[in-house]
């Protein structure tokens, strides 16, 4: 995010109360999480032993999204909120709808392909609203899976993810002017620090005051979009948008490259070397008594348990994140088994995890 975090112009910030700040940060957690299933699905659809460059680019990016999720949890805890990844609707019913300037676009759980990379570029694209009035856009009737919208009004969506975080930043400043350091009244033992978040795509920032809150937001935005309009973040890491762009352009960026013109080593991408999985698969796509259905239900149960574990970790037991890492590896194995299996009765279409955590009990019953 490249603009000033401070109040611009005369307009009131959208966040003027603590409850509004909580609602925005709840939405931010949902937004950060929502990118993880599509990234993981594309990542694990890559055929083993192929596309090692693409595999690593996707993997590093998804790990950084997990960092962002934890950073938002730290923000929410710092201001006395309660992160909850188990509320109904926390995981979108894919396709989800994310903002990209004048329009929104669909984000699907799909195989690794040029098309899915195109979507990932849109997720991470740096976009700044041209003027104050266009920061919030009326996208029409409320719809499921719309992310980055104004809490309480699903019809109004922010121009971009950057603008959404800009609003949170404005709200933090507004409330800090109002309440002083009492804004950061959260229990410091609920902060996740580096002892429980390691090798996780950058340094975790415990949040205890306005400065650390800004640092957390800056890290989230820069890792996605780059710092100060450049292609690198302030730690010298290539931003997500440009990492993905390397795969599409077939070349690595190197130091001093300008945007859209990577001049580093060539990257070989084998776009065909991915399992042909069902896009946005749902349990209803699988024959009821099939092993694929049983495995998809088992995955959803594990995933629901995992979100519950994260909720407890963010709720004052950060040491549980060590167990969560173990759980992530199990989830990976469950995902790859599904993706390697064809859906019975559908010629040449493979299964995929459905991430229907709220409906997994209904799935068992059917």
């Amino acid at each position, binding site marked *: 995010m490249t603009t000033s975090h401070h109040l611009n112009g005369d307009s009131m910030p959208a966040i003027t109360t603590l409850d509004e700040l909580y609602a925005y940060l709840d939405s931010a957690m949902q937004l950060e999480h929502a990118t993880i299933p599509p990234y993981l699905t594309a990542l694990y659809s890559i055929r083993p*032993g192929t596309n090692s460059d693409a595999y690593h680019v996707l993997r590093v990016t998804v790990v950084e999204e997990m960092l962002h999720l934890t950073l938002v949890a730290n923000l929410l805890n710092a201001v006395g909120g309660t992160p909850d990844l188990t509320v109904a609707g926390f995981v979108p019913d894919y396709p989800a709808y994310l903002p990209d300037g004048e329009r929104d676009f669909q984000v699907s759980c799909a195989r690794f392909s040029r098309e899915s990379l195109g979507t990932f570029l849109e997720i991470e694209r740096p976009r700044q609203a041209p003027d104050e009035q266009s920061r919030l856009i009326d996208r029409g009737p409320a719809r499921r899976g719309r992310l980055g919208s104004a809490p309480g009004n699903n019809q109004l969506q922010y121009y971009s993810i950057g603008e959404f975080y800009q609003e949170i930043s404005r709200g933090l400043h507004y409330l800090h002017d109002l309440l002083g350091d009492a804004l950061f009244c959260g229990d410091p033992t609920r902060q996740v620090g580096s002892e429980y978040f390691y090798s996780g795509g950058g340094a975790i920032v415990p949040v205890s005051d306005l400065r650390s809150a800004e640092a957390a937001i800056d890290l989230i935005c820069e890792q996605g979009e780059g710092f100060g309009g450049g292609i690198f973040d302030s730690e010298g890491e290539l931003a997500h948008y440009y990492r993905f762009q390397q795969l599409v352009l077939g070349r690595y960026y190197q130091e001093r490259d300008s945007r859209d013109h990577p001049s580093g080593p060539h990257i070989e991408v084998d776009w065909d070397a991915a399992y042909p999985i069902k896009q946005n698969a749902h349990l209803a796509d699988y024959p009821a008594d099939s092993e694929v259905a049983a*495995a998809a239900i088992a995955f959803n149960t594990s995933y629901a348990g995992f979100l519950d574990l994260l909720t407890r970790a963010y709720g004052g037991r950060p040491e549980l994140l*060590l167990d969560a890492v173990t759980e992530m590896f199990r989830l990976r194995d469950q995902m790859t088994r599904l993706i*390697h299996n064809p859906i019975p009765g559908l010629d040449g279409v493979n299964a995929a995890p459905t991430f229907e955590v709220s409906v997994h009990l209904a799935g068992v019953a059917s």
Partner: protein
Amino acid sequence: MTGPRQLDGSRRLEDFLAFSAEATAFTVFELRGTGQSQAYLNTCDGIVGTEVTDCLLDRYDAARSAVVASESTLPELLRRDILSDPQLGPVARNIAKMWFVGVWYELPRAWTEAFGAREGNATFVVSTQSYTEGLLWPAIGANPPGAKAPGFGSWAHPPRIPVFP
């Protein structure tokens, strides 16, 4: 039976997986989940030839049909008709071992003396993935050393061993 099977690659793979499920006690879903099915079938074909592989798959088909009217169980029929067969037995055992450890083992000398030497019939790891995807690891609830890292401190927890039918 060899004719149609040779014409239809996916049917052939399905038969190979059905036999492999019987030989390993893992389900077809779990076998496919390793991502190694085609690599193992290709390895078997490449060493012993498609005719021997097809003969084994035919024998398995026949046992599955026969078990309905037989007093014997399927494992008994397989022991008698495949595992005790001088040509098919060692190949069947090699397939099971391949699934568990990702390695093709050199066929015993008695086999090559009786049925002829085969090019490439040496002990080798099938692919860089086959070691990490070996069924041995889930069978004992462990991760392959040096691969599939299970997370710091996970060794403090008891292994999760799958339930076999």
